[in-house]
């Protein structure tokens, strides 16, 4: 199987001889080279989904829905 497969590249850019080896030991990402996702970043600002505590008591102003929330998650 290995012989017939397209060449895959390790995360370090070194061609791999076996596909399974293209997985780094901790299971993290993976296949570089032509099979890696293109690098073309696009920002994805966090959205405001919740009213702040105290909003309903009139203690806090309503947030702007288009304002970016503090970054959390990935």
């Amino acid at each position: 199987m290995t012989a017939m497969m397209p060449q895959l590249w390790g995360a370090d850019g070194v061609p791999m001889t076996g596909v399974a080896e293209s997985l780094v030991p901790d299971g993290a990402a993976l296949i570089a080279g032509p099979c890696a996702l293109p690098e073309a970043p696009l920002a994805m600002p966090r959205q405001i989904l919740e009213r702040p505590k105290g909003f309903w008591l009139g203690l806090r102003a309503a947030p702007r829905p288009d304002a970016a929330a503090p970054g959390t998650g990935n």
Partner: protein
Amino acid sequence: MGLVAAGHGGALARLRLTAISLSLLAGVTAFLLFLQFGAADGLDALDVVRAVLILISTLWLAWGAVGGLIGLTTRAKAPPRARPDTAISARVVILMPVYNEDPVATFSRVAAMDASLAATGVGADFHFAVLSDTRNEAIAQREAQWFARLVQDRAGLGRFFYRRRAQNTGKKAGNIEDFIQRSGAAYDFALILDADSLMEGATIVEMVRRMQAEPRLGLLQTLPRVIRARSRFGRAMQFSASFFSPVFARGLAMLQGETGPFWGHNALVRITAFAECCGLPELTGKPPFGGHVMSHDYVEAALLARGGWVVRLDDDLGGSYEEGPENIVDHAKRDRRWCQGNLQHGKIITGPGLRGWSRFVFAQGIMAYIAPLFWLGFILASITAPLLAPPLDYFPEPYWPFPVFPRNEASKAISLAIGVFGLLLLPKLLVALKAAVDGRARGFGGAGLAFGSTLAELAFSSVTAPILLLFATRSVFQVLMGRDGGWPTNNRGDGQLALPEAWAASHWIVTIGLTGLGATWAFAPMLLLWLLPVGIPMVLAPLVIVWSSRDGGSRLMGVPTEYAPAPVMDLQDQILTRWTCAPDTPAAEPSSPCALPPEAAFAHV
């Protein structure tokens, strides 16, 4: 459909108002009928409680029925279409998020969709990205092996991409977000799939053309049909999704207008709109209500609408498929996740700037899971009522020597029962009737067989409904008690269950059924007959679960894709046969199904 597009806002508002008014009318009628019934022997507080419970339950049932009636009585307006020869200028990527899935089945779907796209002859360069969140190392290794096979098989170098995240932060929504943050600028549109999604190339091309033709369109959702079901439960779901859902979806599309739904897969998104509007924060607090947004799709649809983008369900688009759970237990597990996600929307429903209809959709989603509690509350209150009822007073008037007997208002209760059953049954029967008249029934084996299948589905869902009701109720209580359901892997095998498994999953339902029937017999024997249709399936839950998980091969509940598989299904079958039975199948492949029929390859994980 952009069914009621801009400029038709008045018509949309009238339609929504009519639907809500009709539902309210049904609920209030049920409320008044029950009050009259309860007042026959003197109105007490429990009668009022029961009347309120029946009001809410009937309102919910009526809302579903009205949606069906709208779907039956309206015709989809033609969406803005580009000419069929319009060139595809957009850069399109097809995203396949996977999480501990069988790579053979999953990647064969990718190969089939690629082949189907190639067959359209549009000559566009569609890319595929497999976005792995797989945690199981053995499955991850198989993903790598089979991805290589996929790339080679479809000559996909430079078009097919694979990456596996080190941390699956944010689950599926985080997986998509990670792709957009890393590679989003390379594309204009992304077709978001599930691991079990399958779509015709022609459908994908048509979706891209529609999105190119409507610059305000942020998300275009298709109506996926369930395919490849084998068990009785799976085939009942498949028939329902294929026969009834298109009508109900049309009703939904009519009501939602441009504030349409996103069901998380088999939908095309405009990447700039998605990136601009759909970066999801973690919600405050701990799971199950805080943390990552679980049912992210509803939220993303609401956020796109908040950002001024059109979100549309084009129910006229065929060629969109998915697979479903094959047994009640797997269905309940999936439902547990959805339940937590929908209840979590309680924190978002008041979010700033959301459209009113988006808030209403969140409320509907929450109601879908708490509605069983109202029915259960009504049943419990009815069993309890005789215990708490004051003794009958035959001489309520002082100094009046003749007894006053309670009025017999049983006719009110019977009218109410007929009304409730009518709301449950009538829309489906009307769908069958319309299908017979307009010829759609031919795809389901003809009018006679389609009608028989409808009756069979009604009987089947009547038996399984009480069991599903208790599973849903347990899910709601688990969430309310703060238990996080996590992110279990979907089972996509044949799903056959043995009695011990079914018993382990449902013994508590048997206990509740026996206790409920015993209490009814002891305290409210006049209700026993009414409650048997609910109680007996509960008592027999393990048997029902086992029976419904078994092979459901029958002419009843046949669907068009069983009579004539869709071209993309054929393509996938051919690919599976070639992959799993070729001499170069990976030797290390532990579960190579060469000796099995193609469909068995779905049963790996």
